[in-house]
């Protein structure tokens, strides 16, 4: 594989990386969340504030409220790895210009040079974690036969607008946690279960939102242990357990000095004191609130129980299926399903959390381009109100157009090819009614998104309903997401236990050859 890459495709891979980089850099020239909006600013200031706190205070004070560390002002509420990363970036910032991370006085620092610094830390994170992980994934996946398709798959993954806009526009470091998860998938698919568990533990320790993926990891590894033939199942499980526990132990080491300190960190990570959902999210509860005002009918504690119960119940089908058939293909689909269930039903969901489902879908794009592409477009659209607030409309249009052009003209849509004008990747097949219906729905769904987006930008909503368009957009996306969740479940359940099946096919073919 490597040698064929080095032959003729190296230059094309270089081009892919360059294009992905320049797109990210151009997006980063736009405004970020909370730019010029005192007193709280936005996620950009949160990340900068964490650098300020971690550089100036000893680790044991990071998560505690104190005169130096006002937790009401963007208190650290991510796991330790984020804190260490902030510390590292903070030290570099301090080296370049100490004023950027000076205690108190640096609050709301925002000048072009500082912005350049912050933006480049995200780009560096992408170079170090996200890009290599995606590369490794597409190098080792056995679903791609030709180098050209591999290049296209990598390009489409790098140019997915959602993560570019949130990380390089809005400002977050999702590339790190999601990149670590992708890396874990690579390890698991190459049978390095221990390394995989470690990579995923690191992802969890970077961002607790990765819990959305925890269930598939657990079920896959558990199922694999139980069906292991060569090894004692308990032994295998114990090894994985030790790796996970020791990774966690190392990450949490500075905070394990006392039970109180460890509990405080935990308390910061899971703030149930917040609401059912933030702003307008395209999940089940937010959409349901159009009809039933749950928040007025139930107490917060009851809501937490309701959400938890629903999520667990919805999580069961895909988990049990995976536990019983722990194949890597089902595992990848279970990642999508589990994160979609969390997104739709869990408590305190952000619109950005759709990325946790979208990145695993990016990894499946080359397998079934049509539904995955559709999902990825809608997932970006579902964040539109947030992107508008951040002043990223132009960047959204640009990255969206770029992605749409690249994908529609380069992906192999198989039977749907004839419904994509200008796509000549595979031979157009005969049109039939079902396909026509589905393709029409695809184009109508896109048209609907565009109309909603344009309307939300140009029309002023009636005074009684100031949130009309964000609500419409989230309800519209939510309907899509529910259907997509069902579809991905169906895909997981009908997924052939590929490894054994393909072996059967090969042996059957061989037998046929022998006979003839």
């Amino acid at each position, binding site marked *: 594989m490597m040698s064929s890459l080095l032959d003729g495709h190296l230059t094309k891979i270089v*081009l892919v990386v360059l294009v992905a980089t*320049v797109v990210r850099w*151009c997006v980063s020239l736009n405004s970020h969340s909370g730019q010029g909006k005192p007193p709280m600013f936005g996620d950009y200031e949160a990340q900068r504030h964490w650098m300020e706190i971690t550089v100036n205070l000893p680790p044991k004070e990071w998560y505690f409220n104190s005169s130096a560390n006002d937790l009401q002002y963007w208190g650290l509420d991510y796991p330790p790895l984020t804190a260490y990363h902030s510390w590292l970036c903070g030290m570099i910032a301090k080296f370049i210009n100490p004023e950027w991370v000076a205690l108190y006085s640096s609050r709301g620092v925002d000048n*072009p040079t500082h912005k350049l610094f912050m933006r480049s830390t995200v780009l560096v994170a992408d170079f170090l974690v996200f890009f290599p992980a995606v590369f490794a994934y597409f190098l080792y996946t056995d679903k791609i036969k030709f180098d050209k398709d591999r290049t296209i798959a990598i390009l489409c993954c790098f140019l997915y607008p959602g993560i570019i806009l949130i990380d390089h526009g809005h400002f977050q470091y999702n590339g790190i946690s999601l990149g670590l998860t992708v890396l874990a998938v690579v390890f698991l698919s190459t049978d390095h279960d221990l390394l995989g568990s470690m990579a995923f533990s690191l992802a969890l320790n970077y961002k607790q939102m990765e819990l959305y993926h925890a269930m598939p990891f657990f079920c896959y590894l558990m199922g694999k242990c139980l069906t292991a033939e060569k090894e004692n199942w308990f032994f295998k499980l114990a090894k994985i357990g030790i790796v996970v526990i020791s990774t966690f132990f190392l990450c949490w080491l500075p905070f394990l000095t006392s039970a109180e300190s460890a509990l405080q960190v935990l308390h910061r990570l899971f703030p149930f004191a917040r609401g059912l959902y933030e702003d307008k999210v395209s999940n089940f509860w937010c959409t349901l609130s159009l009809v039933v005002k749950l928040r007025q009918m139930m107490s917060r504690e009851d809501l937490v129980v309701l959400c938890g119960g629903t999520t667990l119940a919805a999580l069961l089908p895909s988990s049990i299926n995976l536990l019983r058939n722990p194949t890597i293909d089902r595992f990848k689909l279970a990642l999508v399903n589990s994160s979609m269930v969390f997104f739709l039903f869990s408590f305190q969901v952000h619109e950005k959390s759709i990325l946790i489902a979208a990145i695993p879908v990016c990894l499946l794009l080359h397998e079934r381009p049509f539904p995955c592409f559709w999902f990825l477009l809608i997932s970006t659209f579902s964040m539109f109100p947030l992107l508008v607030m951040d002043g990223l409309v132009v*960047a959204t249009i640009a990255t969206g157009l*770029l992605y749409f052009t*690249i994908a529609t003209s380069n992906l192999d849509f198989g039977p749907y090819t004839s419904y994509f004008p200008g796509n000549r*990747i595979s031979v157009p097949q005969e049109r039939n009614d079902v396909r026509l219906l589905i393709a029409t729905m695809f184009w109508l769904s896109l048209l609907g998104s565009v109309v909603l987006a344009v309307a939300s930008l140009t029309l002023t909503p009636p005074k009684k309903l100031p949130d009309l368009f964000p609500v419409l957009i989230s309800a519209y996306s939510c309907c899509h997401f529910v259907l997509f969740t069902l579809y991905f479940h169906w895909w997981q359940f009908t997924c052939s236990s590929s490894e054994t099946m393909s072996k059967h096919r090969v042996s059957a073919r061989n037998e046929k050859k022998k006979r003839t």
Partner: protein
Amino acid sequence: MQNVWGIAAFVTAVKILLIPTYHSTDFEVHRNWLAVTNSLPLSKWYYEATSEWTLDYPPFFAWFEFLLSHIAKYVDPQIVVIKNLNYASHATVLFQRFSVIITDFVYIYAVKEFCEKCLRPVKRSPEGDVFSNSVLSLAVLMIGNFGLLIVDHIHFQYNGFLFGILMLSVVRIYEGRNLEAALLFATLLNFKHIFLYVAPAYFVYLLRSHCFQNAKDGSILWTSFSPLRLFKLGTVVFMVCGMSFGPFIAMGQLPQVISRLFPFKRGLCHAYWAPNFWALYNVVDKAAHITGTKLNLFPSTNSSQSAVMTGGLVQEFNHAVLPSVKPIATLVATGLSIVPALFLLWRGCYGPKSFVRCLTLCAFGSFMFGWHVHEKAILLIIIPMSLLALEKKRDGQLFLFLATTGHFSLFPLLFTIAETPIKIILMLVYTIFAFTSLGEIFGLPRRGLCLPLLSIPESLYILGLIPVQLYCSVGHSLLRLDEKLPFIPLMLTSAYCALGVTYSWLRFYWLTWKDICVEKSKKRE
């Protein structure tokens, strides 16, 4: 990307991404022209001088701004107020940027027409991706031209639209619709008069192939002269110019308009020397002066004056050792450099391709020897030359060499930190694509360190651009020379590129001459 529209959509998306980048004073220039044409009557357009950026393009461009301004005032009424100097609200930026992006579709359409109707590639096959299919590759090379991207969509100008008219007129020439070509070119001249530089090629070609006919061996048939055709051509050109300048002649403002269009007050070279003959001339002068001063050959009074040559001021200055250059000298030199090209076109006119060659040579001549040449004028050479790049290996090879050198010479145009990664990456993307694609299309195996298609010295020269850029962006300040010798990076870039451009010019002349010899011998057989 399987068709030209796909490529156009891709490049358009990149252009939209570039909207928040830095824009130069040209942004304010065009904003001011919107205001001038919107708020003043025609008679005052070329007299208005509130802003220092007075209207200095021909009337059609003013009318173009007039049209735009009537849309602009709905976007933000403040755009069209003359007193709002340096006005750049969010809406203004969006409006101006999108006006460039949308008018670029003229260029995209022209490129599509050329690729589909006029290109005769080495192998014509509908198969292949953007790398291996000639039509698609040329579309990427032209629509995604690095120079146009940074000059129009970062620096801010309307070249895409203007080159669109030029390319459309070239397409018409390929199709044999000469009158339409003349009409389009005359219109273009009245949009931006810098295209006067290539007018001789049009004049000679239209006279030769529209008013005369060829004998069987390709030589001219003097008896076939058609006065009617000449009259038609003349009428078309005069009508267009009459429409443009007529009102100003009627108002007796022609001298004022002309003085705005041709400001000879400026210096021999732009603040940053365009990489041409005069850049080399300046370097030699400077070197001679430094050695001379060290050897105490001259009194040291001149030193302060020559040190400011590249200090960023547009002004006349005197050379220290070599004779100073007067505008008339550059005019003569330009004329002399163009005459052989015109002569070659007249003697061996073998269809539109000879015309494109002559067009390129005219642009080359004016770039090499013109008065106050801007570095951006290199596009006037690169874009016509790319029309030839996909047909013959030797032309493709020279195109790769010149495009890379010429695009590199545009780097000083963008000097802000945030835009530096963008210009470097876009340049790399364009260059790597061009080399890979032409390498695949002309099907040459790679040899060692050589770049596809290039010879060893050429490859070394192109790879040498990397250390030059490293020195300019990092090395110079590391050596702490930026206060003592601030002009060195610009001078180095300019001189290094001037060598490459001069080489390309000479080689292109030679290739054209050889081409004609080959064609002639073919016809005789």
